[in-house]
Structure formats: C-alpha cells, structure tokens
C-alpha cells in the first residue's frame, strides 16, 4: 500500500462518528441557507473557506442583515476564540508536519480537534499524512452535507416533511463519549472537570450567548494558578 493509502485507511475509521454528525449538521446548514433563498454556491463557499459549524449558522443571520463586514469579522473572532486553545493544545502534535501543516491548522474544528487530540498515529503510518486525511475527510463530510442540504431545500420541498428533530444530539453524545474515554486516565480528570465546571459556572452567570470568553478566562486562571500544572507535576 502507498503511504497515502495507508494513512487514509488508518484515519477513516476514526472519522466515522464525525461523518454522521457533519453530514447531518452540514445538511441542516445547507438546508437553512437554501430555505433563506441563498444560492448553492454560497453554502459551498462558506463550508470550504469558513469551515466552522456554529459560526456558519451565525453567518446566515449576518447575510440576512445589513452589510457590516467589520462586525462579521469581530463576531468570528469572539465565537471562535476557543480555537486558540485547540491550537495551543496541538502545537506538539502538529510540530514538523511540513507541507501538511497549513491545512491541518486551517481545518482544526471542534470535532477534528476532539479526534486528533485523542488519536494516536498507528505504527508505520506517516503522521503528517495521517492527520491530513483525518482533517480532509472531516471537511469533505461537512462540504458534502452543505451541498446536499442546499440542493434539498432548493429542489425538493416535500422532503421538509421529514422529521429528524433531535439528531443534533449526535454532537453532544460524541463530545460526552470522548470525555468519558479521557476520564479513564486519572490524570485527565481534574482538567476535564475544570473545563466542564468553568463552562457551567460561566453559562449560569453570563447566559448562553456570551459565556465562552469568561469560561476560557476561568480555565486559564485555574491552570496558571494551580502549581501542579504550572510547575510541571502533571506532565504528559
């Protein structure tokens, strides 16, 4: 098998949970775009060059409003500020990935991060290619979903009768199962609880529209203040 085939074969099974989630969420996004009367190529352009789930839903609202590109930029920075943490977490794993690295960095979504941070590249597989295919497969599901959704909304309005309400829970279940897998390792428990706790506290205090920035601030404070983490006791 060629190195590419080998890396693709190793990456694909890990992306199956994301396949379901992205096809569904991508289709919902495309469907929303189509039902607001936006052409298919808008959805494709967004899924190809923004490629951030919750932000793309917000962008639908932005496109319906007045033309305010600076405001749009600011919204993207705020809502996606959590990516800064993913990047910091992946510095080591994505180190020295050469030609693949720009795409790995661009495609670091919530779901790709959740898979990539817990996945180990199998023995004998080129790790740059492994993470590249992991990322590329995930984006291809997202783009495919967006396309299908847009076409559905444009062409086949009778399919709106299909009721798949609640399937978005697939994402919650995915995050929760990964959380449970990490929980198996004792040393992951305090960070895991700190993250969930800070987010929950912040959600109660600030409400669902503005809780992410304070939650991230709390998490940073926690780890910087806790000497076990800042002085090197909890390595790995």
């Amino acid at each position, binding site marked *: 098998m060629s190195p590419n085939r080998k890396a693709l074969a190793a990456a694909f099974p890990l992306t199956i949970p994301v396949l379901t989630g992205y096809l569904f969420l991508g289709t919902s996004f495309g469907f929303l775009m189509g039902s607001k009367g936006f052409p298919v190529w808008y959805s494709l352009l967004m899924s190809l060059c923004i490629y951030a789930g919750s932000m793309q839903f917000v962008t639908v609202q932005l496109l319906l409003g007045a033309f305010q590109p600076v405001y749009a930029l600011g919204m993207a920075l705020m809502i996606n500020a959590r990516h800064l943490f993913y*990047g910091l977490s992946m510095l080591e794993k994505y180190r020295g990935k050469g030609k693949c690295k720009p795409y790995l960095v661009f495609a670091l979504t919530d779901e790709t991060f*959740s898979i990539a941070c817990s996945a180990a590249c199998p023995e004998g597989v080129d790790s740059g290619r492994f993470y590249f295919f992991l990322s590329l497969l995930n984006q291809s599901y997202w783009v495919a979903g967006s396309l299908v959704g847009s076409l559905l909304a444009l062409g086949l309005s009778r399919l709106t009768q299909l009721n798949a309400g609640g399937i978005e829970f697939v994402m919650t279940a995915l995050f929760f199962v990964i959380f449970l897998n990490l929980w198996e390792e004792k040393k992951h428990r305090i960070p895991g609880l700190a993250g969930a706790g800070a987010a929950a506290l912040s959600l109660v205090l600030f409400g669902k529209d503005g809780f992410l920035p304070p939650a991230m601030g709390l998490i940073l404070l926690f780890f910087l203040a806790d000497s076990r983490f800042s002085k090197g006791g*909890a390595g790995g």
Partner: protein
Amino acid sequence: MSHTQAVITILAVALGTLVTRVLPFLLFPDTKDPPQWVRKLGSVLPYAMMGLLVVYSLKDVWPPAPPYGAPEGISLLFVYILHKWKKNTLISIAGGTALYMALVRVFA
C-alpha cells in the same frame, strides 16, 4: 445584500476564523520552543476543552423550564451506561442519539 457584499461578509468571517486557528502556530513556530508554561497548558487544555465542549453543546438546555432538561439528562445517562457496558464509541453515540430523538417527541 448584493453578491459582492455577501462574498465580502463570508470572507470576513473566514478571515476571523482563520486568525483564531493560525495565531498559536504563528506565535510558536516549529523552530521556536514554546515556554514551559505554554507546554504545560497544552498538555492539560485538551481535556479541559472537552469538558467545555460538552457544556457548550448543551447550552440551549434550560433546566428551570419544562421539560427540565430531562431528554438530555436521561440520554446522557444512557450514553454513560451504554459506554460502560459495551465500550464502543459508535454504539454509545448511536444509542444515545436514538433515545434522545424518541424522548424529544415524547416530551414535546
């Protein structure tokens, strides 16, 4: 909004998103070792972020009002039991989602 304005808006969102993804890697390129505190942060943040994402994905649940977060709570408990029992990521996710889809209809 014209097509040109829409494309500019989309590109502005894409740029903002890209900045949040690229910044850590620009600050700490391959050739430059990040300081110790950043590396320590990188070793614990993935786990904290997963906890945050679980809460983030539940942010639209409002327990004080009916159905009191019951579909989510029951489904998460089911995912937990399924996962302890079968230890299979796909089964846990599919089972939990199927139950949730049934529950939102029951509680609707």
